């Protein structure tokens, strides 16, 4: 369980708003091993979200290298990156990003649509994931009929549907009250016990404290490990 799953070497992302250079990431070196539960922390603008987008293959580095599960992302075409996201990454967002007027079951099944599975197989797998987050009673509810905590659990189930290597959670509790925050964090604990690698982006100390390891970003660099 200690093989490196995510390896970042001199990872740099530069934006050029209005001519000047802004280094969102400025030479980041990091290794995250399989099965680790890592909290990526830092104030807004520190580069933690950019780092997460890189790991999630939503953004490409300006310089440096990122190897995930033995695959160099820079060598991949856009379609290969889409496939990589589909198979290796499960996203959980602050705003849940569930499709409205769509049942919890079909929301969870969405990633499998792009894997070409039949509707029955997709729903079977989705139901299994909803059971994992304790929402098997609410499969046919629409997001608007669910509480915030329940919606985020649906989103977690969706992230798990594709059996990804990495669960990327970007401020997953940012839109939740303290009670439901605990619910969601408990589920993440259960998942890490099952061996899923979790990268949790947060600026809340209490949330970050639940992870095994913390990485603190500031001004596009890692400034501290396990603060």
């Amino acid at each position: 369980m200690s093989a490196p799953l995510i390896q970042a070497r001199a990872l740099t992302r530069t934006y050029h708003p209005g001519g000047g250079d802004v280094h969102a990431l400025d030479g980041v070196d990091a290794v995250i091993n399989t099965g680790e539960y890592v909290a990526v922390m830092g104030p807004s603008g520190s580069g933690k979200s950019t780092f997460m987008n890189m790991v999630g293959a939503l953004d490409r580095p300006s310089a440096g290298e990122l190897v995930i599960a033995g695959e160099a992302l820079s060598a991949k075409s856009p379609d290969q990156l889409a496939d990589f996201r589909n198979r290796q990454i499960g996203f959980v967002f602050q705003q849940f990003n569930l499709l409205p007027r769509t049942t919890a079951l079909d929301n969870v099944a969405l990633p499998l649509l792009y894997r070409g599975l039949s509707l029955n197989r997709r729903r079977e797998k989705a139901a299994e994931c909803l059971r994992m987050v304790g929402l098997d009673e609410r499969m046919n509810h629409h997001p608007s009929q669910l509480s915030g905590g329940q919606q985020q659990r649906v989103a977690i189930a969706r992230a798990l549907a594709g059996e990804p290597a990495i669960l990327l959670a970007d401020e997953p509790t940012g839109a939740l009250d303290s009670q439901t925050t605990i619910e969601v964090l408990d589920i993440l604990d259960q998942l890490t016990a099952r061996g899923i690698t979790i990268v949790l982006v947060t600026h809340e100390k209490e949330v970050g404290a639940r992870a095994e390891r913390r990485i603190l970003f500031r001004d596009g660099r890692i400034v501290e490990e396990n603060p």
Partner: protein
Amino acid sequence: MNTLAAIAVALTALRVNALRSFLAILGVIFGVMAVIITVSLAQGASRAVQEQIASLGSNTLNIQSGSNDRGGRRGGAGSAIPFSSDDVDAIRENLDVIVAASGTIQSSVTAVADGVNWPSTILGIHPDYIEVRDWSVAEGRVFSVAEVSRSSRVAILGRTVVDELFPSDGVLGALVRLNGQPFEVIGILTERGQSSFGQDQDDIIIAPISTVRTRVAGYSRAGVRDPVQRIWVEIAPGEDMNYATEELEQFLRVRRGIDPGEQDDFQVRNFAEFITAFRATETVMGLLLAVAGLITLMVGGIGIMNVMLVSVTERTREIGLRLAVGARRRDIRNQFLVESVALCSVGGLIGLALGVSMALLLENLAPTLGVTRLTVSVDPSIALVAIGASTMVGVLFGFYPAHRASRLDPIIALRYE
């Protein structure tokens, strides 16, 4: 993502926004409806023209003596020596390419029966004329060749004349005075309705040409025995019209003593040019209507594009999410393209139903609106036109919004409020 899944996703999205989907396709509905109505009208008009051409006789020639330009002063059409009944008989007997021939003399006439009068047109003919023009009698009989020889006073009336002179029954065998001369009514012509120029083709009386020449029209020309105004001939089936025309011209040149190199003093006409002109008019009209329909359809397409752009903007986060969970750009593009095509196809089907209903309704309403010659032809292939056209609009106007959706940056799209 396979095609079926894409269609399922698209239909779900459309159902979720049912009202907006319906409003979006209104333009396409009206566009397809307009195309169908115009195509049906154009096809109806085309069919009417075909019938008109058939009624003129596509294997018919008519001959008129032309201008007399001998002696310097040109006399205009008909000033040359007219043809005679002998010429007609000679044509009928000597030319293999001709199966029927008739001279005609036309004159205005006042018909009187039971003290009621009706001004009409009388046409003196040989019985062959009925065959040449493909006419027929609805009741009674056509006079015989013998009756022509005897200058019998028998007449066949058109329906309009019958209606004007004999409001009640008992037409056959009745007496009618034509320019004062008593004629026995022996037949009624089959109704032919209005010509394409709006002329009533049933306001006519026909009688033996010999009788009309001497008793009604008083048509004579010095030096010509039994003159006729025109000659109508029917070409044998399968004979080439141009060949027949040349044969006829050559025959008449010899008969009239026109030397090679000298100009003809007669004209042989067929309806080929007339038909060409007719068809050209028809083509232009069809094009105009098609363009009008297409413009309507294009306007409908712009409506679709507008709604699709709104839909893409509204669902920016959804697109971001789909990209994040593994949709490729072309999956997104296809999703919106399928949506647009599905919208348009549904619009096309509704437009098809409305268009066909409207076309049939128009045909039924036309007489009450005073339009008597409106024919509508609803061809089954119109369904293919409707579906094809609406699908094309869907692809054409759905492509840009779909392309835009597929080019969204997932990071920005996911945060879009």
